[in-house]
């Protein structure tokens, strides 16, 4: 028993709606500012809007957004000819823990339909407001789940899920929620494992979110 490794599955964190609204941040990327931005603000979501992500403002992807509502047309042209799809691929590469919801009512052809396949969810622009808010709230729950964040941390650190290193990190994390030195050890490992500056920053942002969730779980949240 003394030597048994702890698992991330022990961290059973489920945020209340108020906590979810308080802790989460979302970004809407659409060439035309959609009314849903105001609906989200009215419903107390913390939301920012950008008409596009380009090479000049791409650093915002490294920020602590949990969910991105992403349009297809007229966005992401800096990243490739597939517009929103090219941007989606970039976001997933840079910050794999961000939940991206495909937000379009455009008829996409078979080449472009990877936009729906590679996203975490689909929200039709035609959807009703309450339905849209429900889908976005579900997306945020997914984004701020320990499973999603841990998966993102592993991806950005280049660690294979289920590997010995994964198990070692899980053990450090769960034990670290009770003994701070273990968390420091894990933080150092994350910094060492992600050699690229941007990746280290994102790895540490994910780590902070995991710690917050873990603490909330310990407190019975």
């Amino acid at each position, binding site marked *: 028993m003394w030597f048994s490794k702890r698992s991330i599955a022990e961290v059973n964190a489920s945020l209340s709606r108020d906590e979810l609204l308080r802790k989460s941040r979302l970004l809407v990327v659409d060439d035309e500012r959609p*009314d849903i931005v105001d*609906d989200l603000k009215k419903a107390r979501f913390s939301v920012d809007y950008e008409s596009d992500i380009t090479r000049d403002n791409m650093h915002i992807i490294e920020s602590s957004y949990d969910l991105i509502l992403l349009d297809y047309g007229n966005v992401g042209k800096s990243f490739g000819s597939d517009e929103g799809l090219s941007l989606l691929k970039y976001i997933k590469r840079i910050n794999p823990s961000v939940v991206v919801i495909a937000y379009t*009512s*455009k*008829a*996409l*052809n*078979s080449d472009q*339909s990877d936009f*729906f*396949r590679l996203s975490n*969810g*689909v929200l*039709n*622009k*035609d959807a*009703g*407001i*309450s*339905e849209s808010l429900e889908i976005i709230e579900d997306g945020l729950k997914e984004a701020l789940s320990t499973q999603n964040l841990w998966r993102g941390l592993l991806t950005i650190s280049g660690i294979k899920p289920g590997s010995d290193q994964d198990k070692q990190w899980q053990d450090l994390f769960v034990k670290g929620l009770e003994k701070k030195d273990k968390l420091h050890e894990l933080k150092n490992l994350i910094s060492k494992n992600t050699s690229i500056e941007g990746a280290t920053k994102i790895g540490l942002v994910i780590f902070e979110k995991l710690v917050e969730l873990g603490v909330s779980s310990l407190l019975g949240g």
Partner: protein
Amino acid sequence: MSKYDTLSKISPFPTVNLNRVSLPLDGLLIEIPAICKKLYFRDDKCKRHYESLSTSNISRLLKQCPHGFSSIPFEINNNRIALTGIVPFPRLGGELERNVAKLNPLSKLDTNKLYDAINALIQLVENVDLLENSIVKNQAMALHEIRKLNRRIKQTAERICTSQNPAEPDLAETELVQIWKTSEIMSQQFDIIEILAGRTLTELPVDRVIEIHKILLKCVKIYDPFKAGTFKISCLPTYHPKIYACIKTFPIIFTVLIENAIKYATGGSPTHIKIVANGRLCEISVSNISEYAMIDSSIFKRGARGITDKDGSGNGLYVAQLVARQHSSNISVETLPIQNEKMVCTFKVSFQTVN
């Protein structure tokens, strides 16, 4: 439409698709010789002749078939096609060719004119393609713009209804709720049009876990916002099946079945919706009482209609079936005659549930 489909419709001469060899199709001016229709199925000589043209790298070179006619292969992009049933001049030679020339004077053709005809056909097919692509693109743009306008109506109506009655927006001012729900129905119709315009939506993966109840109740709410008793839903209260679905297309199945049931129900009779478990399958049936008509699986064909004096394009069930197949299922229909020339019409569909 494939390049061969287009070319075969406008070619004056018989054509054969060398990418998928089968009996040649008649040309607009010259039909395939009667003897060809007979000989093609007698043995595999004709088929082998065309297959040799399909595998050869040589283009635009006349080759005589085993029965004396000639064929000339050519390409449009990667589509390999041949004009066939021709007797060329100057002749390729041989007794068989002399015989078919005597019997088929209309099939005789100057070889130079044949090359001109091929060039003209290729040009025409390419122009038709350009035109088709431009129409599809423009239609998609037009549909997108109409969807945007409808979205504005729908969401504005929902906002006003919610501000009037935040707890139960469906019970806001009747006319407003009607505007809201009608625009929701329009959104569903746009999805159907999109699938009819190009079936790529039904090629999307079925990879999201959804609760059937939620989708079904949403559809019911659209068609009966005032709970006027249009629907009788029966399901065990503890049974809440989840399935893998494509979130963009799955609701179409319910909206089409429900809309059809309402449209054809007689005398304000309700639509019965049943959800039952059958092992790992979740079976859904939508029934109504309507005027008797012969309805069988042919109702799922494109443009098929049950009772023709009702509005409708006959495309709804066709699209619903495409979506059901996308979800590895199939919609079936049963009719049970009852008194006074009425029938109970039941559409059934089932899905594999997930834990």
